[in-house]
């Protein structure tokens, strides 16, 4: 295999995996955009949805559509409930309160998942072909293609929603300035709930796709850590940023794995995105597409 073919292979895999990161990052961005809350439990949201879907398929014996519907429904309910019970009380408190609350939530979900649903690792089979498509030099696993497709679909749908629909504009208004949004008669709390529920939807799909790729156990939550370089690179509150950040992280990971790992014996794949993240923080703290704080003098 030629050099350029190897590069193209790494690139294409990076793009596909990157788009799957984007999907999870989208969950994070939705909440941050609407409520200013940094959700450290994003990976656990994905994990717990994976648990529900896998339990549906493998333990309770439901058909696939029902298993996915259970995960979706469960996450929507969880999203609304969390906002209602926990996060609403933290509005107006220091950011650290929300951060700590979501870290606590993450631990709880990691504990509760295996405890109440099942323990050990379960596969989450989807009715798609196993063997990869071979297109020229490319080597494309169908699940990644599906994942990338779902990501693009959702990113486009949410992008449209925020830019064009009145509800979406109202949601951005809430994110911009809660007090003024209230003065315009916008029901701020309801939008917070909606944002968490949207995150639930995205996480549920992420859980099914990543669960299929990695298998479902507690470690599925680790995918959530990849969200941080993605959103720092792209911008915490930007949907296009989530795409670009995801692509960068996916590509960097694959390039590191392909070009650096052979020399150092492996492992750079896992931390290369974080090196990039720290560099990005030093240069452009609000990300490539993140909103700048507008200051007037």
């Amino acid at each position: 295999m030629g050099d350029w073919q190897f590069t193209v292979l790494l690139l294409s895999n990076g793009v596909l995996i990157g788009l799957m990161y984007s999907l999870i990052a989208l969950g994070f961005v939705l909440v941050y955009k609407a409520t200013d809350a940094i959700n450290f439990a994003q990976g656990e949201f994905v994990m717990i949805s994976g648990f529900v879907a896998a339990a549906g398929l493998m333990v309770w014996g439901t058909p696939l559509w029902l298993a996915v519907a259970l995960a979706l429904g469960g996450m929507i309910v969880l999203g609304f409930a969390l906002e209602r019970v926990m996060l609403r009380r933290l509005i107006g408190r220091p950011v650290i309160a929300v951060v700590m609350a979501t870290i606590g939530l993450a631990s709880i979900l990691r504990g509760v998942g295996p405890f109440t649903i099942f323990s050990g690792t379960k596969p989450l089979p989807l009715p798609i072909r196993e063997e990869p498509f071979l297109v020229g030099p490319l080597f494309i696993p169908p699940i990644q293609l599906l994942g990338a497709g779902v990501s693009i679909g959702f990113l486009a749908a949410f992008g449209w929603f925020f830019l064009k629909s009145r509800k979406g504009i109202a949601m951005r208004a809430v994110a911009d300035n809660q007090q003024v949004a209230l003065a315009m008669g916008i029901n701020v709390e309801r939008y917070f709930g909606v944002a968490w529920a949207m995150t639930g939807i995205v996480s549920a799909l992420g859980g099914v796709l990543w669960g299929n790729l990695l298998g479902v156990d507690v470690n599925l939550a680790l995918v959530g850590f990849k969200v941080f370089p993605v959103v720092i690179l792209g911008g915490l509150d930007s949907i296009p940023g989530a795409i670009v950040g995801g692509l960068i992280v996916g590509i960097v990971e694959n390039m590191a794995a392909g070009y650096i790992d052979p020399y150092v014996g492996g492992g750079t794949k896992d931390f290369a995105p974080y090196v990039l993240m720290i560099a990005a923080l030093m240069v452009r703290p609000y990300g490539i597409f993140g909103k700048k704080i507008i200051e007037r003098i």
Partner: protein
Amino acid sequence: MSAGNGMSRPILSVNNIEVIYDHVILVLRGVSLRVPEGGIVALLGANGAGKSTTLKAISGLLRTERGDVTKGSVELLGEPIHRKDPGEVVRRGIVQVMEGRHVFEHLTVEENLLTGAYTRCENAAARKDLDLVYTYFPRLVERRGFKAGYISGGEQQMLAIGRALMARPKLMLLDEPSMGLAPMLVQEIFEIVSRLNREEGVSLLLAEQNATIALRFAQYGYVMESGRIVLDGDAKTISENEDIKEFYLGLTGVGQRKSYRDVKHYRRRKRWLS
């Protein structure tokens, strides 16, 4: 003289309200005022006199700041509204333009305007009202695609008022529309606002430190200090009042007075002259 009567029935009446923040801090005591339907009423007073608090008590925004109307009532066309949440108050026809030109900085000018129509269901009507706003504020037309954070201060104030108009209010509460703006712009904004009053039938309650301009456009005025109303009357009467002249309008008749003994209580505790 009973406040604002004689012109027509009041669209808004604030009856003897008391406002307490955080359950302990008393900020308004026995504030009563009336806005006649179709009228312009000025609420004057120095910084910290309680003007903004009064407006927030009317619009319901007070509770989001841990404040509460503990006594008295606020009525819109005879219906009590002081227990309603801000969304309900907007739906019933009162919209507040907050102090300090609060726009949604990261939204475009046009998106800002559309948020004003949030409480109304009809999408088409909202789009039509955009044109109405643009006829009153032609400056906003060329800025429609700009992020609101990057337009000038005067344009932001126009945007905030235009956005409020999108809610099609019966009564608009304007909090310091003149703040931080050049006199020419203040004049322009007040002229547009009084056109809204005449042509769209929007009643206005405007809180202002700039009494000169406020009294030029209002028919009736109230003066607040330390959370109470200390004086009220027709705009003309108020602007001819010696105390007001001296402290708000900067027309000094001070030379004639040697002693502060005969100066009324509300005048003595002034920190306003600077």
